[in-house]
């Protein structure tokens, strides 16, 4: 073996054999992506933080030091202390508890808005890209209309018209975020639908639906996933802006954005009311963006990782 490797080689026979085994080991795309992602330190840390925060939101009832709607009348508008690690609000509710419970709303809104946008956008993009022709033209015109309206303005208007509940907020946010996934998916379909593997699938008698979603769509998955993670962050921020401008959620749905809005009245003498929810939003959105970037690097085989 050593002789076969060449006169200058310093590899021993055992090492060469090990290398050959390693090279021949089949890795799925998913495994490769996971390995690459795990090498991205920042994204890994961000992902862990996100998991921690998600868990804390899920287990809010267990983690919260106080009951959510029970004020502590001895400590109204109190700064952070040992009893109330984030301080209290004007009626004595512990801020840490509110942030924990608020996280449930903010995070779920972000998640569901992103998922809905991606599902709707993915459908529109697939149909539009695959069938082409009039369907494509009409769908793309609709997408253009949706893209041409000023996002924040429309969101406020819709919140005024429909009223703001967690469900309606998810719908409102998604109704102007689906265009981006749609475009991504559509461009993938446009470039792939003429490829040989699609024709082969058709020749084999595969139905249209199967071709679209089992053959072509998985190729669009990579940029779509990245886009989805970014949408989560965007949705959380939009929701908090809505609350800030008074067109968002109201009690009992006290999301982080709502907490921020309420806190700004007291910002001069009780800054902790704005600082902690603000930091919470910031950290979540930051981690989501870092994870999204890490995913994008991991999913792209040509980038350096």
């Amino acid at each position, binding site marked *: 073996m050593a002789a076969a490797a060449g006169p200058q080689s310093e590899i021993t026979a055992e090492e060469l054999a090990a290398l050959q085994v390693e090279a021949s080991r089949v890795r799925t795309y998913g495994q490769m992506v996971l390995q690459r992602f795990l090498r991205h330190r920042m994204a890994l840390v961000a992902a862990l933080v996100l998991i921690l925060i998600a868990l804390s939101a899920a287990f809010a009832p267990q983690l919260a030091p106080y009951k959510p709607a029970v004020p502590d009348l001895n400590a109204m508008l109190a700064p952070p202390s040992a009893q109330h690690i984030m301080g209290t609000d004007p009626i004595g509710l512990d801020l840490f508890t509110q942030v924990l419970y608020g996280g449930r709303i903010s995070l779920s809104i972000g998640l569901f808005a992103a998922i809905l946008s991606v599902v709707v956008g993915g459908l529109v993009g697939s149909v539009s890209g695959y069938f082409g022709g009039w369907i494509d033209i009409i769908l793309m*015109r*609709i997408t*253009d*209309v949706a*893209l*041409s*309206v*000023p*996002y*924040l*303005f*429309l969101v*406020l*208007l*819709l919140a*005024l*018209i429909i009223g703001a509940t967690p469900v309606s907020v998810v719908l409102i946010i998604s109704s102007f975020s689906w265009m981006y996934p749609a475009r991504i998916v559509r461009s993938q379909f446009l470039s792939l639908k003429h490829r040989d593997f699609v024709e082969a699938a058709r020749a084999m008698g595969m139905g249209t639906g199967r071709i679209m979603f089992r053959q072509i769509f998985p190729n669009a998955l990579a940029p779509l996933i990245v886009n989805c993670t970014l949408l989560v*962050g965007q949705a959380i*921020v939009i929701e*908090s*802006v809505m609350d*800030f*401008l*008074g*067109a968002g959620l109201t009690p009992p749905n006290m999301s982080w*954005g709502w907490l*921020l809005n309420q806190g*700004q009245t007291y*910002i*001069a003498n009780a*800054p902790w009311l*704005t600082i902690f929810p*603000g930091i919470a*939003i*910031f950290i979540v*959105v*930051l981690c989501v*963006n*870092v994870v999204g970037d890490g995913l994008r690097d991991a999913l792209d085989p040509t980038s350096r990782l």
Partner: protein
Amino acid sequence: MGVFVVRRVAQAIPVLFGISLFLFILMHAMPGGPLALFRDVPGMTPQELKAIAASYGVNQPIWQQYFGWLGNAVRGNFGDSYIYQEPALRMLVQRLPATAELMGASFLLAFVVAFVLGILSAVRQYSFMDYFVTVVSYFGMSLPTFFLGIVAIIFFSVELKWFPSGGMAAVTGPSGLGDHLWHLVLPAFVLGFFILAQWSRYIRSSMLEVINADYIRTARAKGVAEWTVIWRHALRNALLPVVTVIVLDTAFLAGGALVTETIFSWPGMGRLFYQAVSQGDYPTMMVTVTFLSVVIVVANIFADVLYGLLDPRVTFN
């Protein structure tokens, strides 16, 4: 190329129709209808309400209202604001310079800083500068606009008393250019920060793509000085998509200034819209959204044409 422009404009027309239709339906779906404001006035009798409805033309069938509205809109008549009793379009146009000024200042600031940061971080990838720029741009993308604005006001206006906390000019006393600029600093920085966070990423990733390309390696292999490689070869190609993005952003950020204008009491379009929403001022809301949508559509056309002009690989067919 002229044919392309014409075709592009023709494509935009159904989009504009679609937008106007959509907005119109939206307005009429509001709780209480377009006359919600008047319905709540104490002592309003049904007869008076009917008279007001007739004067605003609201009692006609809805499709007739739409075409009536459209006909008026094309001629610039968006009706009078319910609150101020002034032509809505005129009110919007009055606020336009203020918004344009804020956006112009923010853009200038953002572009200069993003340009420098983006290039530096791309050229020295994985260096401290690169991580710094990445952190800054993550900050910008992750902070809610109003949070930074409020914190900035607290810190710079209330605590340090360096800058005024709002308004466009001093209310009392003389207000010359200097005072005006002084009021502009804080809002422009806040808005500019978010813009530059985005743009530095675009510039950086665009530069990275270009810098790793083969023709750059060729230039370096030929012995071309690094500075020339970056400036003459890499930058031109990298800035191409960025230019398009900037043009598109112009349109979108007109709306994004809404939050900044509200926080800093800057008398622009965004603030006008916010006030209109809270007061149920239907004509003003319509005109603002319509105007911004038209701006976005025009900016899209402009960006397409611009890209075609700048990129020699693009042919119009």
